[in-house]
């Protein structure tokens, strides 16, 4: 099924000015202005990381808040601005979508990171590669926030080299029998559907023996075991498949053609890094505030210089993101250059976390109860994960070297 949102603009599309008025009216009616929580020291939630440690009750409450917001937004026509009408989208242009997200920045939007993989990777893959029934079953409900998707790629033995995965998909008439294990699967414990890569052909070269599926996470034989992250959060999991029976209609793309699906997903994953998906803008603003409330640091020339360097880097990243948005608007798919965003963002976040830690001394790593200080510990602990999730720094650099700079491939017996 190919319902490319960009190619099916609504014939009765509203102009940007009217859209803006409607969007502001909608947001005014449902949200508070962001100023109350993001740029005033001591006001609002000081959490710095989506991976922060939470109790199960806090986690559920957070998801429910995100879900309620997604549903409200979707029902008002702002949930999937570029999506096709038949799937509940507004069939407007990427310009409308970008305008909406810019306007939205001025509001206190509930954190919706639980939907990042779901909507950034899983739903697009189902839409692009799924059969009608699967698309109907999942895509609209995912965009409305009713359902959550997770990405079942990495395995204990297959991380960077995901094509070496060994979870097996064995064909049994109209069904597939899935057996194996995935690991570090973000959000699997809340997910309704997984985007699964499994080995369907053990004789073919490794990239050519993989098939992709959308798999309902409630199927018998699937077990999700939470893993604790270094942050104390339990956002990622091990997922075990024990002879799970899945109908062929859940297959995405051709048999043994799953690597093509994976590539399109990974490109989307990197594109997720554009905009402020990593929270760099917010972190830099918090860093500025942290410096400002401490006169001794605010006066320290080394601190000031490093802060200035970080602000410059964040500005460059923001402009690069805008340029990438422009390319996307022009209908160009995300390409290898998107890897720059992930690297640049995680590097800048690392500098932010280091400077905050240095400025605050013990207060950044020991909880004195003071607002906005120990909250940095979460970011300090999160940064190493960001440098790994969605492609490690080293793998990102390989992609840049080989695909953007055109350098020779790394010597290897197999690649």
């Amino acid at each position: 099924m190919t319902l490319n949102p960009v190619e099916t603009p609504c014939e009765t599309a509203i102009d940007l000015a009217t859209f803006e008025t409607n969007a502001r009216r909608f947001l005014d009616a449902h949200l508070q202005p962001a100023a109350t929580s993001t740029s005033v020291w001591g006001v609002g939630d000081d959490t710095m990381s989506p991976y922060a440690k939470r109790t199960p009750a806090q986690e559920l409450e957070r998801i429910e808040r995100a879900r309620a917001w997604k549903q409200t937004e979707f029902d008002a026509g702002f949930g999937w601005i570029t999506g096709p009408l038949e799937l509940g989208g507004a069939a407007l242009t990427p310009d409308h979508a970008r305008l909406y997200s810019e306007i939205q920045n001025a509001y206190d939007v509930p954190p919706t990171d639980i939907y990042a993989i779901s909507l950034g990777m899983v739903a697009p893959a189902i839409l692009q590669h799924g059969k009608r029934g699967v698309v109907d079953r999942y895509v609209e409900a995912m965009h409305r926030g009713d359902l959550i998707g997770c990405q079942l790629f990495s395995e204990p033995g297959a991380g960077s080299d995901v094509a070496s995965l060994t979870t097996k998909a064995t064909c049994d008439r109209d069904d597939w029998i899935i057996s194996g294990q995935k690991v570090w699967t973000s959000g699997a414990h809340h997910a309704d559907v997984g985007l699964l890569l499994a080995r369907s052909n053990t004789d073919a070269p490794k990239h050519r023996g993989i098939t992709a599926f959308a798999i309902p996470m409630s199927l018998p034989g699937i077990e999700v075991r939470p893993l604790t992250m270094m942050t104390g959060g339990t956002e990622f999991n091990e997922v075990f498949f024990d002879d799970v029976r899945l109908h062929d209609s859940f297959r995405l793309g051709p048999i043994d053609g799953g690597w093509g699906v994976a590539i399109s997903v990974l490109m989307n994953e990197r594109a997720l890094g554009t905009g402020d998906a990593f929270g760099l803008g917010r972190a830099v603003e918090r860093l500025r505030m942290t410096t400002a409330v401490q006169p001794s640091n605010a006066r320290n020339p080394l601190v000031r210089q490093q802060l200035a360097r970080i602000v410059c880097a964040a500005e460059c990243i923001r402009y690069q993101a805008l340029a990438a948005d422009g390319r996307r608007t022009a209908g160009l798919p995300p390409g290898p250059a998107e890897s720059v965003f992930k690297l640049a963002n995680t590097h800048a976040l690392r500098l932010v976390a280091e400077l905050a830690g240095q400025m605050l001394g013990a207060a950044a790593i020991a909880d004195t109860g003071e607002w906005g200080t120990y909250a940095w510990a979460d970011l300090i602990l999160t940064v190493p994960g960001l440098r790994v999730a969605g492609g490690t720094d080293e793998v990102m650099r390989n992609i840049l070297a080989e695909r953007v700079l055109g350098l020779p491939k790394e010597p290897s017996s197999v690649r």
Partner: protein
Amino acid sequence: MQFALTEEQTVLQQTASAFVDRYCPAALAKTWDETNHFPADLWQRMADLGWFSLPYPLDWGGGGGSPLEICIIAEALAHSSLDVAMAYVGTFIPGLVIYRHGTDEQRERFKPGLLEGAYRIAVAISEPDAGSDAAALRCSAVDAGDRFIVNGQKAWCTGAGLPGALIAAYVRTDPDAPKHRGISLLLIPGDAQGVQIRRTPTLARHLLGTNEVFFDDVEVPRENLVGALHGGFSLLMSGLDMEKTVMAAAYTGVAQSTLDEMLAYSKERRQFDRPIGNFQALAHPMADLQTEIDAARLLAYRAAWMISSQQPCTREASMAKLKGSETYVAAARLGMQVLAGHGFSTESVMSFRWRESIVATISGGTSQIQRNAVAKSMGLITY
């Protein structure tokens, strides 16, 4: 120039390494950290080996060990965790202050406990508004003749909450004198009336625990005053070079352990049909790290040698602490990258290393403070 350890020192190193393998391997230290467990029996084992008495002179019943020998133990213990090494070092550093500056009566009174490592002496210098600028401390002790009345608050006091803790509190006894001259050192039992101890949640260092300590009209007998009245600041500074040096050796040890762990993983873990350690992108940073660790170790050993030969070494000890602590952070950062997804899960020892490393460049004097000391030795007054 002689780089080799003596035969005795080599045996000590081997004993300490075997001790870690047997009683406190890194995975166990991680479990202790995660469960806030204080392994009292580990102390007893260290005491049985005579390690707590090692820093004291032979004629006082001590082991007469040199600073280098103490560094060797601290370095080996840190292969378990920095916290374990810290527990060892933190016991005798304040003990040496009592030995050097205490009265004969105090020395006799505390001798058995010091030599056996029975005292958990928690040093209380820092306060909410006095960290790097330790002399700005405000916690007050009023002289009431045969006793002092102590009021105020201390912050980040390591080990104060352990059973039997003795708090070595630096307090202001003369509020009118210039800030360095109105400080005294009092020994205050953790369970004295009016002392309240509250544990501070921290990223790591959970073995001994970090605490806020509140003093509310605490009566401290005069015989617990160590050194001269108002002369506490020189006591505070007196053990600092030794502390920095031994801690530098510990940082070297834990950095080496961190490297050893990632190296082993990188030889075993295969991606793209080869051990990941064979990617230059990882091999070269690991080679750089080993170079840094060797440099850090040499700096620590040099400072230890200077202390032994009674040369002033504030500059060299600061360099060693700076390099050692920064190298530990760098090692843990690289380790997280090498272990990637596995590292980010709490199942890995590496996640513990990263949590623990963050404090290295802060506690015991921040990196900036060490740089100030080095800069000062170069004729640059930066503060």
